[in-house]
């Protein structure tokens, strides 16, 4: 029979190999699933994962879609390292988009200057941070499960957004569509490379990766976060305040998610409308785990999951494959990542039934 055995030390080889094994296993399962759906798995997987890498437009799109994923996942990784379970990043993402858009709507059609966009970004980050503070305070002050409260707030955020764009913020010239007016140029995130869709937000995401690297690897706060998550008892003896770290990591991750939200709306989307997010906040959870909660890993994982979004869209157009396949892929990937991660801490050993029984005696 198979038994789990704790490794004496974390296996470095397994730590590097586990995400790769997980991706390979997911691809294999996807191939089986595609065959079941009556498609040629090789062509379908090529459309999903290779075609987007071969033309320039898709490569730009890859960067555009990876930007919010990486930004959100960096924040989430801090939470998860500290053992604080923020799973409502989608809500913080939406609220950040809403609070930032407020200024764009308020200054629409006026001759407001270049200060609008920076102020919008600050408002977005602030909105996301405050929204994340609700579940964090719920946990720290009242002991309410932050998992459930942060998730409930996603539904609330969707409804807030829906209310605003159908009501007070609706574009009067928008033929009754639930959307705000197109943002003014001063309220739009500038394009980075002329003639492409790659925007300044991608640099912000890179900066977040760099900042997280320094925070986790080189500062006392980063050390506290890791200790509180990995060894809560040791953290108590060291006098680290676990509650304050929960608040801190939630605020930081909420701010990053909110920032990603307003960048997305003021950048690639250009106006606020319901359903502008294809679930970035949830996919970012997968990005954080696939990247092994490491900033560089998250950067790579973010690009990879962006690929699944683009590949999924292309497969829908060219092969009529359902878009839900992308979500199936993402869910499956998270399963395999988690399973493979277990191999870093444990080794699986094959023992005969008899020896196992002897051991028990």
């Amino acid at each position: 029979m198979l038994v789990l055995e704790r490794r004496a030390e974390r296996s470095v080889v397994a730590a590097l190999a586990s995400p790769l094994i997980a991706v390979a296993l997911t691809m294999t399962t996807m191939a089986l699933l595609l065959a079941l759906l009556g498609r040629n798995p090789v062509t379908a997987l090529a459309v999903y994962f290779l075609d987007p890498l071969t033309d320039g437009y898709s490569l730009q799109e890859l960067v555009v879609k990876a930007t919010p994923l990486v930004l959100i996942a960096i924040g989430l990784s801090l939470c998860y390292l500290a053992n604080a379970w923020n799973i409502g990043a989608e809500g913080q993402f939406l609220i950040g988009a809403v609070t930032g858009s407020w200024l764009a709507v308020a200054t629409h059609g006026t001759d407001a200057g270049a200060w609008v966009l920076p102020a919008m970004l600050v408002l977005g980050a602030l909105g996301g941070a405050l929204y994340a503070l609700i579940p964090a305070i719920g946990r720290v002050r009242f002991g309410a499960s932050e998992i459930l409260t942060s998730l409930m707030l996603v539904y609330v955020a969707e409804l807030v957004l829906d209310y605003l764009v159908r009501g007070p913020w609706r574009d009067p010239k928008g033929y009754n569509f639930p959307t705000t007016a197109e943002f003014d140029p001063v309220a739009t995130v500038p394009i980075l490379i002329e003639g492409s869709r790659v925007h300044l937000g991608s640099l912000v995401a890179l900066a977040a990766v760099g900042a997280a690297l320094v925070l986790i690897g080189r500062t006392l706060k980063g050390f506290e976060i890791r200790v509180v998550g990995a060894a809560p008892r040791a953290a108590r003896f060291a006098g680290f305040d676990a509650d304050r770290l929960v608040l801190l990591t939630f605020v930081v991750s909420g701010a990053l998610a909110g920032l990603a939200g307003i960048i997305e709306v003021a950048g690639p989307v250009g106006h606020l409308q319901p359903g502008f997010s294809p679930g970035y906040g949830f996919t970012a959870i997968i990005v954080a785990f696939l990247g092994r909660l490491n900033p560089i890993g998250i950067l790579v994982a973010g690009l990879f999951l962006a690929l699944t979004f683009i590949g999924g869209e292309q497969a829908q157009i060219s092969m009529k494959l359902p878009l839900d396949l992308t979500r199936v892929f993402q869910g499956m990937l998270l399963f395999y990542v988690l399973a493979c991660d277990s191999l870093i801490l444990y080794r699986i050993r094959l023992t005969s039934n008899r020896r196992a029984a002897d051991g028990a005696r």
Partner: protein
Amino acid sequence: MGLAEAIVLAVLAASTPLLIAAAGELVVERAGVLNLGVEGMMIMGAACGFAGAYITGSTLIGAACGIAAGMALSAVFAALTLGLAVNQVATGLALTILGIGLSGLIGAGFVGERIVSAPHLHVPVLSDLPVIGRILFAQDAFVYLSIALVIGIWRFLYFTRGGLVLRAVGDNHASAHALGYPVLRIRFLAVLFGGACAGLAGAYLSLAYTPFFIAGMTAGRGWIALALVVFASWHPGRLAAGAYLFGAVSILQLHAQGAGVGIPPQLMTALPYLATILVLVLISRARATAGSAAPASLGIPFVPDR
């Protein structure tokens, strides 16, 4: 039919899926496992239940398909969390994402189709009694089953040896293991039971509540079921009270919207979610002074030492 009677009927119908899913999760958590994938198992139950009923024309087979789908997903969860000692929170999330995706794939061919809604009980004379007749003796099988389920779980947990062992495993897996109880096997069975309940709850939605399937039709009910378990302090009796309370809140907001109260409909729709948050905070605060009622080993992986 009077308005009060209509409201009671609607509340019963809205509460039943919450009650079934939460009852299953209660048993899972009592065994010390936190399965956050209820939403995913429920939506799969809804999709597979509808598919089964549509193809065969039988509500019973549909319900069985829903149960099977929930159990299949929960078996994957068990393989990871029990077999490989993987973090239960993250695995539950993966289960939800996967379930939503898979249900979309399976349900895509059935969107827009309709089936005959699950039949309601009809007892001569009794069902025709004024007021209580329709409420007590003319429900569909799911409603009666949900009540039987809660009573059964209550009897099992507190009055049988098996229930005692299950609670012991949830409260202190190391001691239960030392006493010779097969911790992982008991947890595996509990997780499967939870999956079956979640699948059945989903099937109720697409077979009886609204006899059609649309993507994402569970709309967070799985998460509310999880919150209900906390609300109930892991006790079946309080669970039933909580489920009916939440059913009442969701029906109330529908009626208020219908009556054209001058409140944005989005705020009314948000009410069940806001109520969940408020209740979680209040309950948790009250418990902070009285000591936690959660099973002590909840969410902690168990790897037997050899």
